[in-house]
């Protein structure tokens, strides 16, 4: 019986690995769909490499940084050593009733790479490919696991009773803060903010972006569902329901907000609304009722539409809305744990707030240091000519759609 349950749990966790994996395809599709065709190869290249680099560095040291073991409980930093030495009994139920050591590693490794991908969307169409890869290496390899350790690795935030179920803060805002800093340091795309106001720069392939969002939602079944760390029917099924309902009302919230504010049926806003709902519910997916999830989703969806438009007015150029979706809704979702559901209460709200602030400080600082150093040394941004003619031609010597006749934007 023990063994059977262990096996089921492990099967569910392995499925979740696959689902989180597919989110990388989701991000690649969404980001390339919402940007211009002349930079498509660049985005695809980045997204494949982030995953490859993320998995590799996480195997080398990231996992040991994030889960250094019980000796570091309540700490700020820990490290178990390089590589993935199999602990004693690491493949049986003595390791953990929910999963084997290898399953745990791979699930966490797939998560790790998402943080850098979030940044990728925000800096699209103007960052140098090498600079971005180096940034990713540090951010996914070091910063993400260190922050992760604070809570999921048993560090001081765990001791503080911070609740962030699947990472509204630990994943999404960790990516979101870096995206914000990167967008500030990089500046907007040429032609976005002109003397006569903001100029829209259209995403070149909306079906691709839509595919991306559906795949992200699909992947979120594993992102949130797997974060239960077992196949426990009660919790996992609740989590899937809260996740899906928040995504659905995220779309509805974005629909109404965007219709009321802009009189527009803009599908990209609905897509961002879905993601906003998903990010918003992620911190509290296990402690909300379906109704509460629907409220959180609807608010996140609306918030994200407003945030996209506000961030644009601040002249922060975020081509795919990554800051609005992952940072703004990540913060909201984390606070929502103190406002709705089983843990609601001022005390919890204050804990949530403190954790957000601490992580904000750390992420902004470290991403600033990494990005600023890159900027001063190898440079962050391509030349104006490269940007105008497209990163694909200049950095990759190829185009994404050679058989199609294109309009240049």
């Amino acid at each position: 019986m023990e063994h059977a349950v262990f096996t089921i749990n492990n099967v569910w966790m392995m499925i979740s690995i696959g689902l989180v994996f597919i989110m990388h395809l989701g991000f690649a599709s969404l980001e390339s769909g919402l940007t211009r065709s002349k930079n498509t190869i660049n985005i695809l290249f980045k997204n494949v490499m982030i995953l490859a680099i993320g998995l590799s560095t996480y195997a080398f040291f990231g996992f040991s940084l994030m889960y250094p073991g019980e000796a570091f409980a309540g700490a700020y930093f820990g490290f178990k050593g390089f590589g993935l030495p199999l602990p004693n009994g690491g493949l049986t139920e003595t390791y953990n009733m929910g999963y084997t050591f290898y399953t745990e590693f791979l699930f966490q490794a797939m998560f790790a790479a998402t943080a850098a991908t979030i940044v990728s969307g925000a800096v699209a169409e103007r960052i140098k490919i090498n600079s971005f890869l180096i940034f990713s290496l540090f951010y996914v390899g070091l910063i993400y696991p260190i922050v992760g350790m604070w809570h999921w690795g048993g560090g001081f935030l765990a001791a503080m009773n911070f609740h962030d179920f699947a990472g509204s803060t630990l994943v999404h805002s960790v990516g979101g803060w870096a995206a914000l800093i990167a967008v500030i340091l990089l500046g907007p795309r040429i032609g976005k903010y002109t003397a006569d106001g903001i100029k829209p720069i259209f995403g070149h392939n909306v079906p691709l972006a839509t595919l991306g969002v559906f795949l992200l939602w699909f992947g979120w079944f594993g992102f949130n569902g797997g974060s239960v760390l077992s196949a426990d029917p009660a919790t996992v099924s609740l989590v899937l329901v809260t996740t899906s309902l928040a995504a659905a009302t995220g779309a509805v919230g974005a629909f109404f907000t965007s219709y009321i504010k802009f009189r527009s049926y803009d599908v990209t806003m609905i897509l961002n609304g879905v993601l906003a709902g998903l990010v918003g519910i992620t911190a509290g997916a296990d402690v909300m009722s379906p109704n509460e999830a629907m409220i959180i989703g609807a608010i996140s969806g609306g918030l994200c539409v407003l945030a996209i438009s506000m961030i644009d007015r601040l002249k922060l150029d975020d081509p795919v809305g990554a800051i609005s979706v992952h940072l703004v809704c990540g913060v909201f979702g984390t606070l929502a744990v103190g406002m709705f559901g089983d843990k609601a209460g001022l005390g919890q709200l204050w804990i949530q707030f403190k954790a957000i602030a601490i992580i904000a400080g750390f992420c902004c600082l470290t991403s600033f240091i990494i990005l600023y150093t890159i900027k001063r040394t190898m440079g962050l941004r391509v030349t104006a000519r490269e940007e105008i003619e497209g990163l694909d031609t200049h950095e990759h010597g190829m185009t994404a759609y050679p058989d199609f006749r294109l309009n240049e934007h």
Partner: protein
Amino acid sequence: MKKIEAIIRKSKFEAVKQALHEVEVNFFSYWDVSGQGNEKHGSVYRGVPYKTSDIQRRWLSIVVNDDFEERTVQAIIESAKTGSVGDGKIFVSPIEEVYRIRTGESGGQTL
């Protein structure tokens, strides 16, 4: 011979084609162009309102014998008109020689 170039709304293409067939102009080439003209079109994308003066149009290029000029122009004007700004233009210019690649022959009878 004359080259008649017409810039029309894409949505009027089928009507123009029909009208041309009726005046026995069966051969022509066309492609899509963007136009900067009088018509403006306003919308909102991701919360950013925008106006574009960039309009999608179809460019027809028709080479005809001189005696067909009049009726071709008339057929286009009648079939492509909607009456609102943005209906497009017709340009007539001279053509000195025409060859049919298949046969190598030249002159007005190849049209």
